[in-house]
Every structure is written in C-alpha cells, then in structure tokens.
C-alpha cells in the first residue's frame, strides 16, 4: 500500500484529539479512497479529488459505494429533493467546466411568480432574462412515470466521476470500522475493504449514518426537520402553459406552513412545502387555495395516488464532521438552511477534496482547511434564520405583505429600476446568495424607506396602484 505515513494509533479515533501531526497523514500515489454515498456530495467530492490529484500528478483509487440505480425511476433512484440547482451553483459549475445538459435539465428557469392571498400574482424577471436555474429530477423520475425522457441529475454527476476515473460499486455499506488505523468498510454481501481515506456522503435520509457508529468518532449528526415534496403529472404542454419557466412562490398565512413553492419540470410539477407537521390535510388546504388553483388547469384535481415524500433537511449542522482519515460532506455534515442543498454539497465536497489533496487527511488538516467552509455555511444559516423569520412576518401581516407586493410590482414596471426588493426575494427564494448578503441588502435605507412608503400607500384607498388590475399576473 502506497501511503505516506501509516497512522500509528489505536483503533479508537477522536476528532478532538488527533494523535498525529497535521503533516503526517497525506494521500500518496496509489492511496485508496472510499466514498460512501453517490449523491451530489459524494460525486462532487470524487470528481474534484480526482481532478485536483491529476493536477498534482497524484494517482488515486477512488471507490464510490452507492446502491441506487439512477436509471430506474421511483424510489430506486430518488434522493428526495425539490430538484433545483441554484443560480449561483449553475454559474460556478459552468466555470468549473461542468455544463448541465438538456437531457438532465428538465426546465431552465428565468423568473419567479410571487403569489400572495388577496393580491394579484407578480411575475418577477431577472435583469439578464437568462435561464440560470436548473429544474431537475434527482432520480430517473417519479414513481409511476410512464416514459423516462430526462436523465437523473445524480446519475449525470456520477457519470462525470466515472469519466474522471472513479469506480462506482453498486453495494450498500453496512458497517465501518478501523483496521490498523485505517477505515474499513463492510458491504451488505460481506465484502471487506480498507482505505486510506473515507468520505461519508450519505445524506440524512437513510439509516446509513448508523454504519459509522463503529468508528467511535466525536461526530454528531445534524439536526433535521421534515419537508414535504410531491410530484404531479400535468404533461409538458400544460406545465408550459400554466407555470412557464418560472418558480411559483406562495406567501400564505396558513398555520404550520412556512414556505411553499411549485417548481415546473418537464412533464411534472414539483410541490415543495416547508413547515411543521405537514400532513395530507395541510396539502389539500394548500392545493385548494385559489392562488394555487390558478397555477393548474381549471379542471385539474390532485390524483388519489401520487409520488410524494417527507424527506429530512438540515436545520443545524453536524458536530465534528471529520476525524483522522474521515470526512463527512453534504447533508450529513453541514448544509444550507432550507435552500440550495446541492450548492452546499458542492462547497463542502470541494473543500474536503482541496484539503485532502493539498493539505492532508488528518483531523487537524480538516479542522484547519475544511471546517472553515462548513462554519461559514453554519454562520450564514444563523442569518438565514432571521431572513426566514422576516419572511414569515411578511406572510402573516397583511399590510406588510401588500407593501412588498406593491413595491415589487413597481420595480418590475420600470426597466431602469434597481429592483432591490425583487433581488432580495429572488435570492431568498432561490438560495442564490448568502443569507448575510440578502439581509444586508434588505436593510439598505432605500429598501426600508421604499417598503415603508409602499406599506402606507397600500393602506390608502385612492393611491394610483391600488386601483390597478393584474398587470404582471401570469
């Protein structure tokens, strides 16, 4: 085994007390790396690890263990997600040389429509009028799909890693332990392999994290909440006609509901609900709202049986998502609050790959070079909590809600307008900018004064705009 230095320590590993110097654990030619989980985080890690290693003339063996078959529709390939690749991630991937092909992107989104109870819908376009948000299916398609027209997003990323030289092994890892100071995995069918570095990318929606308990790490999994996602088949023509290339966001004052959106895909529309104890009753109440009904064909009724799930999402990151020779990337480590989980997977996976190639693979290396990227996300999530608190306040308070709608409508009327509120909402709903940036922009005196004016003007019965019809409705 070509390894720079074997770790001289007992089987027990703790991330808090690394027993070796930072520089003593490094990947070398022939080092073996195992990636447990082949979703976006696992694929990004494998891809960039191999890419950077190649640049450094480092030859690595990377084995990705992922039991899912991304060519099979339904739960067999689904990674339970709304399926949005954010505007910022699409741009960054383009600069990384990763283009998302038409066979994967079911719809490029260029705008969003803001729906509020009692107000006309407001269609908000980006200044560039460019499709920079990708609506995808993480798997090969929802349960019950008749014809698979688009490829799985996760499957596409996995193909990229294979093209870089990774080996995908379609087996489930059921046990992880130490063997002579190196991580050792055992698959369900009894295959046992030892590696120099282990990257865990198992998300938070399977029982796979239990497999890592045998390592005795200081790692504590992230805190999670449940969201609700369902897929409705409308057909391409109807999706185009009723939803277009826009994400539809609803600011409703409904008990237990924090955020709701309809995302148009190819033949399907994806419903994403975020809130507390979302059940069938709340889903039916949401779908019955007139503003939601208008996004569907007039005679459409939700079928009795449709593909839906209640996946977990992170609300607080993991503790110590690293140790000597072990790193946790993506959702099982640290993610973004409510939005852009795939973007967070990219960031943490890239940070882990950069650290592994350029710095080392000890806990100290990960703490110094990988952990800051996670902390940045975590700190931004705290600001994100405030942003979503303000959003919920706007949802609840009629005058504030009407003021926001009025302000955004006014911005959209003027081509030359700076569209400050539109930008704030766009980034909040799409997850395209850090929350601290969104909060700073929303606190700009021009935004606050304009919002205050629009709230007051909205309360006056004879103000010009209050008498207008739906000029921006879809």
């Amino acid at each position: 085994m070509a390894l720079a230095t074997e770790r001289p320590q007992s089987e027990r590993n703790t991330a808090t007390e690394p027993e070796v110097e930072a520089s003593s654990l490094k990947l070398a030619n022939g080092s073996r790396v195992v990636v447990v989980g082949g979703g976006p985080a696992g694929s990004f890690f494998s891809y960039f690890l191999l890419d950077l290693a190649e640049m450094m003339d480092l030859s690595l063996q990377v084995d990705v263990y992922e039991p899912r078959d991304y060519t099979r529709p339904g739960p067999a390939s689904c990674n339970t997600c709304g399926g949005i690749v954010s505007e910022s991630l699409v741009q960054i991937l383009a600069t990384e040389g990763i283009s998302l092909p038409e066979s994967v992107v079911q719809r490029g989104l260029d705008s969003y429509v803001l729906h509020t109870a009692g107000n006309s819908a407001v269609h908000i376009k980006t200044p560039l009028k460019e499709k920079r948000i990708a609506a995808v299916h993480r798997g090969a398609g929802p349960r019950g799909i008749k014809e698979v027209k688009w490829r799985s997003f996760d499957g596409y990323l996995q193909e990229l890693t294979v093209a870089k030289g990774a080996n995908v092994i379609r087996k489930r890892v059921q046990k992880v332990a130490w063997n002579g100071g190196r991580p050792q995995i055992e698959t369900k069918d009894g295959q046992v392999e030892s590696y120099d570095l282990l990257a865990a990318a198992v998300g938070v929606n399977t029982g796979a994290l239990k497999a890592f308990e045998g390592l005795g790490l200081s790692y504590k999994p992230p805190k999670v909440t449940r969201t609700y996602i369902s897929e409705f088949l409308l057909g391409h023509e109807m999706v185009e006609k009723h939803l277009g290339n826009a994400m539809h966001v609803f600011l409703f004052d409904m008990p237990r509901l924090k955020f709701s959106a309809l995302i148009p895909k190819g033949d399907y529309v994806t419903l994403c609900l975020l809130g507390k104890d979302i059940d069938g009753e709340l889903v039916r109440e949401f779908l019955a709202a007139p503003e939601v009904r208008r996004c569907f064909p007039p005679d459409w009724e939700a079928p009795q049986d449709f593909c839906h799930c209640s996946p977990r999402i992170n609300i607080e990151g993991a503790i110590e998502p690293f140790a000597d020779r072990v790193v946790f990337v993506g959702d099982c480590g640290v993610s973004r609050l409510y939005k852009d989980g795939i973007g967070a997977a990219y960031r943490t996976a890239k940070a882990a790959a950069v650290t592994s190639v350029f710095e080392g693979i000890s806990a100290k290396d990960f703490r110094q070079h990988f952990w800051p990227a996670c902390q940045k996300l975590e700190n931004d999530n705290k600001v994100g909590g405030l942003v979503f608190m303000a959003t919920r306040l706007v949802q609840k308070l009629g005058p504030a809600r009407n003021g926001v709608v009025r302000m955004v409508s006014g911005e959209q009327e003027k081509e030359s307008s700076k569209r400050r509120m539109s930008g704030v909402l766009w980034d909040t709903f799409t997850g395209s900018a850090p929350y601290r940036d969104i909060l700073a922009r929303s606190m700009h005196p021009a935004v606050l004064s304009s919002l205050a004016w629009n709230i007051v003007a909205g309360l006056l019965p004879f103000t010009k705009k209050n008498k207008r019809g739906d000029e921006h409705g879809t």
Partner: protein
Amino acid sequence: MSMARSALGKWYEDGEAIVNQGDVGDCMFVIEQGEVEVVQRSGENGVRLAVLGEGEFFGEMAVFDRDVRSATVRALGKVQVMTVDRVTFLRRISEDPSLAFRIIKKMSGRIRDLNNELTGLKSKTRE
C-alpha cells in the same frame, strides 16, 4: 470536457454582439454551445483575435481588472452562452481559490499563443 447541449444560458443569433469593446463589464461568459469570435478594433479595421468554442470563456479580464471590455465578442452562428456574475465568481474564488485554476490554465494558454504569434511577427519583421 466535451459538452452536451445545455438547457441553460442565453441564445445569441449569428453576428450578434455579446460584449462590445469599450463597454464597462461586470460579468464573464462561458460558452455552452456554438462558437464566438473575439474582434479588436484597430482604427477603422477590426482584427480577429480568436475564435472560441464550447466550454471556453471570455470577458474574464474585465472581471479581474474592472477595466472596459478590451474587444468585441460576436456570435459565429447561433451560440448559447452562460453569464457568470462578477460578484458570484469573485466571492466563490475568495472561498475556494482552486476555482481559479481552470481560468489561470486557459489564460496561460492564451499568453502562450500570444507569445508564439509575437515571435512569428518579430521574425517576419527581421526578414
């Protein structure tokens, strides 16, 4: 990397200018599909500096030096281009400097090409 047809970005028609020489730029561009020509005005004439294809980028100089666009870039046939915002790009580079490796590699290639052209021109002048 060989790129498949993309569903994202913006389409430009043949001959349409994507950036104009002298304009202030706050973004760079990645070509998703098709080709562009890079033309620099020199007096009355325009000199074609390069033809760029899928996966290549342009407009990065204005992102780094905040100067005006040094050349005009036009679509050669129908072309699909992704705009990369300056703030998004620089913010990400500050977090992950390795993102700049690809840009540096491409720019190094361009400097190498320019050196070769300059050497050729100087050789011709001596003759």
